[in-house]
Each structure stands twice: as structure tokens, then as C-alpha cells.
């Protein structure tokens, strides 16, 4: 959840706010959980949907604070810098691709991703290949080519 919040909200306070919103949404939805999907898929669906609504609502507020946040950001290590770059790339994807790539990096299967988004498995696969290409171009990773 923290990793997901880091993509949707760039500022520590916003992340905390989003994290609590997600927690609350899960808590409210808990009585309706029927077990049709796995708990993990269910929780991630709620988290993504909540984050999407939260981001649309908070966009103006975020824009106002971004300048301040950029100035105060401290890069702790090259690893952190690279991770922030990855989070930056993911946050600039379309909402659908963003959800897919986060689920993908979290280790979800294509079937689970299809379940979480309501897309066909084939479509998910094609989109992931395209996303992988984008990531490979951005990060130039040797391993990415093997992926």
C-alpha cells in the first residue's frame, strides 16, 4: 500500500492522507467481501480505485504544493534516486497502465490483473509488453531485455 501511495501522491503528507483513505475504504467494504476474488486482488482493486478518485480530488492541492515539495526532496542514495525515477515514470502513465504496471511489479499474474481491471487477459498481456518496452527504453536495463 505504501508503494502504491508513493506513485499516486508525491508528498509525504498526501501519501499519509491517501493511505488512510485506502484503509478506510477497505474497512467500509469489508462486510461486502464475498471471496469471489482473492483477498490480495480485492484489496488492490479498492486501493487503486480509491487512489484514482483521491488523485482527481486532490490534483489542485497537489499542484500548489509540488514546487515546495520538489525543493525539499533529499536524495539519500543512487538506489533511492533510481526508485524515485521509476515511481516518476509510473506516475506519468495513463491510469489504466499505471494500475497494470503496479500490479505487475507486485507479482500479480495476468489473470489476476484482468480480474482487477475488468479487461481481457490478452489485452493485459499486449499492454504489458508495451509498458515493458517503455521501461526498458527509460532504464536501459540489461535484465529488462531478458525479462
Amino acid at each position, binding site marked *: 500500500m505504501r508503494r502504491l501511495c508513493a506513485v499516486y501522491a508525491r508528498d509525504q503528507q498526501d501519501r499519509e492522507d491517501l493511505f488512510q483513505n485506502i484503509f478506510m475504504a477497505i474497512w467500509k467494504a469489508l462486510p461486502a467481501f464475498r471471496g469471489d476474488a482473492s483477498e490480495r486482488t480485492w484489496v488492490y482493486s479498492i486501493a487503486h480505485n480509491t487512489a484514482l478518485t483521491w488523485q482527481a480530488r486532490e490534483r489542485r492541492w497537489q499542484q500548489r504544493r509540488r514546487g515546495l515539495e520538489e525543493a525539499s526532496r533529499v536524495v539519500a542514495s543512487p538506489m533511492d534516486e533510481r526508485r524515485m525515477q521509476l515511481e516518476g515514470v509510473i506516475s506519468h502513465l495513463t*491510469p489504466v497502465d499505471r494500475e497494470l504496471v503496479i500490479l505487475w511489479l507486485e507479482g500479480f499474474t495476468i489473470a489476476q490483473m484482468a480480474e482487477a481491471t475488468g*479487461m481481457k487477459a490478452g489485452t493485459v498481456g499486449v499492454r504489458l509488453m508495451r509498458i515493458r518496452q517503455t521501461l526498458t527504453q527509460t532504464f536501459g536495463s540489461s535484465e529488462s531485455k531478458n525479462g
Partner: protein
Amino acid sequence: MDDLQPPNDLQQLWLNRRVQNEDTATIVAQVLRNARNFRARARRFDIACVVVYLLLLPPCLLSIVIAFDYYGELLVAAGYTVWAVTLLSGLTAYRIFYRSLRNEPSPDVHLRDYIEHSIDYVNGRERFTMKSATPISALLALAGIVFAIAAHQGQDALFHVIVSFVGQPLVVWAILDTQRRYERKRSQLRQILTDLTKNP
């Protein structure tokens, strides 16, 4: 297709994000506190609405009676009646609108369903806003006309004419602004839905 794995180094980078040790009890307590605050705020708002009703009704009725009985100004009394109806119906509409905030689409469905429900929700809210604000705008215009005729007949209603004819365009502006915001939101949601349904 199921063996399509993410690049190992990127997955490691993603999963290795340092997360501070968190006290789960503190987080849960904070969430519960926020939920309680939200519920308390909603309850306070409900009570405030009823109190405002009770406070507004007597002066509304009194101003009509005074205008009619004391000053014998029939048209001013009629204008006050229209104002009273506008005020109370506006308050009722706002209260219903505020309460309906609790019926937001539930996020525990897949993305496509959620976006579709969200579009329906935005449409519903827009319909409600239009249905309730349009008569209010018309009522204010009517009050303005009634007060204008009263002023023309020499009754003391100039201030009322100004208030009505300033308030009416403000309501129209608020309707148009709300419509613009809903349209923007709807177009964002439709964009996501199109992205979801298109063939890559």
C-alpha cells in the same frame, strides 16, 4: 502469455522500497478517529440544517405578515413569500445533495465497473443540481419582477429588487460552473473507460 514477467532489477527496485516500521495500532486508531470525525461532522450538519429551518421560518412568515398587514404592501409581501420559498427549497436541496455524498460508488469492484459507476454517479449529481438550481434561479427572477413592480408602484422595494437581480445571475453562474466541473470530471472518467476498452 502468463509467463510475462517484469524485469527483475526493476521489480527488486520496486519491492525494496524502504518502509519505516509502523505501529499498526496507531494507523488504525487514526483511521477510526477520522471516520468518527466525519460522522460527527455529518450529524452536526444535519442538526444545523434543522436549526436553520426553525430559525428561518418565523422571520420569513413574520416579514410576509408585516409587509401585508402593517404596511399594506401586497406586492412586497408576495415578493417576501417567493424569497421564503426560494430560501427553504434551496436549503432542502442542499441538504439532500450533502446527504447523497454518502452514496459514492463503492471501490470494491474492478476498475471498469468502478469507472462506469462513477460516471453514473457524476451524471446523477449533475441532474440533481440542474433540477434543483433551475427552479431556484427562476424563483429569484420572479421575486425580482414582483419587487420591481412593487417599486414601480411606489412601494419601498428597491433594495429587494437589487438583491434579487444580483442573486439570480449568481445562481446561474453557479449552475454553469458546476456543470463545467462535472463535464471535466466526466471527460476524465470517459477517457479512462475508453483506454480500458480499446484494443491495444
